[in-house]
């Protein structure tokens, strides 16, 4: 099933890419336009993903043995946390957003229990801010809490 879904997704992406590429000027051999390369790439994608789709729909997919114990729900939760992080960062800035995501991941991965995980997540985030933003001057998203840490440094 996963092969079929991937093949369909890739084929849909190809169609969208081809439509986008077709709107670009192809130019001539003497004066090639911006559409020359994307159109060739699009055709290549159409052929290759088309064959892949056909194979996925007609052949019995070789199923890769699932490792034991596989934990898809953990991956789903971690992936969700990683996806939400940019949004959290935008609204909460580095320390709060990163703390929330790291704490959530520690809980999902069942590290030491909620209280210890909270302490560890907080420690990790503060240390990383001190090392990267204050120590190494790395540019991170800064809000009121981060400002306080900067001011403490003097």
């Amino acid at each position, binding site marked *: 099933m*996963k*092969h079929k879904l*991937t093949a369909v997704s*890739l084929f849909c992406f190809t169609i969208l*890419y081809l439509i*986008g*590429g077709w709107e*670009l*000027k192809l130019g*001539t*051999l*003497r*004066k*090639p*336009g*911006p559409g*020359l*390369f*994307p159109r060739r*790439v*699009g055709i*290549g*994608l159409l052929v*290759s*993903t088309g*064959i*892949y789709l056909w194979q996925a729909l007609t052949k019995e997919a070789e199923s*890769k043995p699932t*490792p034991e114990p*596989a*934990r*898809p729900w*953990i*991956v789903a939760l*971690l*992936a969700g946390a*990683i*996806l939400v*992080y*940019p*949004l959290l*960062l*935008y609204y909460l800035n580095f320390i709060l957003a990163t703390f929330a*995501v*790291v704490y959530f*991941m*520690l809980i999902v*991965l*069942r*590290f030491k229990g909620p209280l210890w995980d909270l302490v560890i*997540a907080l420690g*990790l*985030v503060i240390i*990383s801010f001190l090392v*990267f933003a204050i120590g*190494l001057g*790395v*540019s*991170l*998203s800064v809000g009121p809490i981060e400002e306080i840490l900067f001011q403490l440094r003097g």
Partner: protein
Amino acid sequence: MEMWQSVVHGFSIALQPINILYAFTGCVVGTITGILPGIGPLGAMAILLSFTLYMDAAGAMVFFAGIYFGAMYGGSTTSILLNIPGENASIITCIDGYKMTQNGRGGAALTVSAVGSFVAGTISILGLMVATSLLGSAALKFGPPEFVAIGVCGLVLLIKLSDGPFLKSVIMIFLGMAIYSVGIDYLTGTLRFTMGIEVLSQGIDFLPVALGLFGIAEMLETAYVSEKTGSARKVKFREMLPTRNEWRRSLPPMCRGSVIGFLIGLIPGPAPMISTFVSYITEKKLSKHPEEFGQGAIEGVAGPESANNAAVSGAYVPLLALGIPFTPAMAMVLGALLLHNITPGPNLIQEKPDLFWGVIASMYIANFMLLILNLPMVNLFVNILRTPMQILLPIIIMLSFIGVYSVNSSPIDLLIMALCGIIGFIFKRVGLQPAPLIIAMVIGPMFENSLRQSLLISGGNLGNVFLRPISLTIYLVTVVIFVTPWILKRVSNSFYTK
């Protein structure tokens, strides 16, 4: 003579305290990633790519060389002591290395592995110096049509890069080029595939895509399969001394492994891993006691361990001389250079001699550092295996967030990284290897720009673009390189069946 002066100059750069620090840090990080199953040098390089912005270009190269070489050393440690290959390139070492540990000679195996890696590093770096200089001088005659040929060569050979089926590699190459083509077309100023989103007009950066496909996807995969941690018996220092007979039996395989590894490193694909298999088969074939292989033959450790290190140096040749990465790890190295606005290629030696010779010298220093670091600290490094994945995973993901955000301060880059991480995980589950995609993203711009420039210069004459003598030679070499691994595979199979 001029080359040796350059080497001395390179050492004067490499021995600067800051570069020694980068080499040391790279070696330690590389060894740790080699020891820990699942992360690997590629993941480490992807995660740390953005941090190289805070180093100068030479420092970044030194750092990455340390990681790559260190991973080869680290992978062998767990193969020998625990029968766990931290790296693909150390799988074959498990066979005889772990047997030696069971026979009470694990310490000697570690020493032979470390010395073999050092010998290989030394020999292959000499090869790298000569090959890159020769290839670089020849490549100075290149114009846009020759770069088109190089681009074709790179893209065709990319198919060889992944272990997966031909069709899947082709899909990934086209996907990589499709991702590259998003953004402004620099020759005409036309916007391509931006869908009216302003941020996309600058194109999709290499870094978040690479970090997502390799770093984040690898972490999700690790969470999915729930890695177990291991522990090993401590190795006493006096157990590390090989006997005279073990030394005598190890030296020829080390030299042969170095040559085999360097030559295979020049061919696209998972060169370090392939080189270990070829070296192992060669040693078994040449040995007077082939029956000892699989029972703890020291040649089965010395040859492959030398070969995988030499292959690392060999892989640098096409990158430094032609600007084409033949392996995903080299794509990361190229990414680090591009972050510093340096495009490697034929002119690199002339334009950036400090960088080029500094990197060569640093490789040697990294190898020496690993030799003196890893043997005394082997027990410490093995203890790292006890670190639970539950804590490593959030730390690595957090580092990835910091790394990507620090480059452009853009949450969009974080979103791209997250999406690529999820897509990369799905790709892994269905057997689509991300390596060709990432390299196609790097080669794509060079190929498109050179092709369009060539067509403009030649007035649309395709003969002038594709049939120039150097171009034809490159196409011929491409065919040779394309079929060589196939021949090697056939030869290996025939050895196996015999």
